[in-house]
């Protein structure tokens, strides 16, 4: 029968006596493992804390030591996970204590039971690190997913009474639900009665995605808002047709600009140049005095010449 209490005591005493040597070697090993991403002084400080906790646990000095050690390891693993270390590097940080001690006791045969005890304990701690590490990683991943979800569904106001939802990425039922809720909430909050769903950033549209889109449009209609789908790319249009998806009487437009134009015309609005007095007389250089196109005297016969940038001009002056 092994004398467990005595073994523990002897190991604790040994570790206490060789404090500087072991911690020094341990720090060397860890610093080599992390390849310069943490400074030696910092590693040394972290390990000093851990080491004193390990000694306290082994010597059974008080019952809080075990909990404190777990908490310290937990914290360390979390920090490593956040800083982007691999689980291997994180766990090696603990396991290299074994190596540091082994190098010291390798020559003395009488230290074998003590060393085995320490080794078993460090194995446990190593597993704990890996567990804490993966838990921290999972938290990071779920946080990022939530943040992405938030970022990916902005509802923007295009005009008084016209709002738009630019969708980017893939649409699944969870996202559709979020988009739908946000769109409807915004419709109610702003009292807008036109909504544009822009799917320029949606790579693929299959039957499921189309189903989701139609649901959103249907819900917006129930609130009394007109809904237009815009940004259908050529390939997407091909897919939609070949899949036999029917958008029914939902208005679809090629670009967001077209959808905005449609929404404006449905709202009874028209976009006109702010000032129509861009015409100058070629002789006197005098400006045409009218502010609006309807009152502009610039006709083929008036002698004034348009100097308005052509891009500003409305479509050809129909009869």
């Amino acid at each position, binding site marked *: 029968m092994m004398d467990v209490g005595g073994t523990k005591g002897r190991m604790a005493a040994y570790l206490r006596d060789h404090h500087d040597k072991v911690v020094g070697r341990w720090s060397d090993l860890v610093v080599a493992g992390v390849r310069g991403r943490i400074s030696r002084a910092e590693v040394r400080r972290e390990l000093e804390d851990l080491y004193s906790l390990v000694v306290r646990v082994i010597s059974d000095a008080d019952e809080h030591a075990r909990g404190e050690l777990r908490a310290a390891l937990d914290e360390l693993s979390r920090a490593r996970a956040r800083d982007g270390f691999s689980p291997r590097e994180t766990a090696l940080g603990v396991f290299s204590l074994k190596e540091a001690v082994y190098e010291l006791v390798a020559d003395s045969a009488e230290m074998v039971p003590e060393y085995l005890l320490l080794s078993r304990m460090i194995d446990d701690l190593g597993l704990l690190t890996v567990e804490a590490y993966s838990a921290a990683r999972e938290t990071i991943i779920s946080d990022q997913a939530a943040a992405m979800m938030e970022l990916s569904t902005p509802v923007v106001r295009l005009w008084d009474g016209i709002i738009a939802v630019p969708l980017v990425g893939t649409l699944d039922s969870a996202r559709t639900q979020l988009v739908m809720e946000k769109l409807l909430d915004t*419709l109610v909050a702003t009292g807008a*009665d036109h909504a544009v769903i822009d799917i320029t950033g949606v790579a693929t549209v299959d039957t499921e995605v189309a189903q989701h889109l139609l649901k959103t449009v249907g*819900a*917006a209609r*129930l*609130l*009394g808002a007109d809904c237009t789908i815009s940004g259908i790319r050529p390939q997407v249009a091909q897919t939609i047709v070949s899949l036999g998806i029917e958008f029914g009487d939902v208005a679809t437009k090629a670009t967001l600009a077209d959808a905005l134009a449609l929404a404006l015309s449905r709202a009874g609005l028209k976009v006109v140049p702010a000032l129509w007095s861009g015409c100058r007389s070629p002789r006197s250089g005098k400006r045409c005095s009218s502010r609006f196109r309807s009152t502009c005297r610039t006709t083929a016969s008036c002698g004034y010449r348009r100097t308005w940038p052509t891009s500003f001009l409305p479509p050809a002056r129909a009869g």
Partner: protein
Amino acid sequence: MRLQEDLADELSATGARGVIIDITGVEIVDSFIGRMLTTIGSVSRLFDAETVIVGMRPAVAITLTELGLSLNGVRTAMNAEKGLEILNGRS
């Protein structure tokens, strides 16, 4: 049911041309309510009156969509004001 009957009586008595149903206060709907709204729309149409449902909450709209009810034959509007605009534009 009571609402349906009262509404039909009132429509035949006054010859009203439009019906506005404000459901701002409705927070939960089921398929029965959804169907009832459609029925009211159909009944009103028999009296040549148009039905406009106003003030639907987002949650209600989502529920109705998930139930597959699109309230055919009934117009919808954001608020009573816009509902009146729809009715006025028609007559």
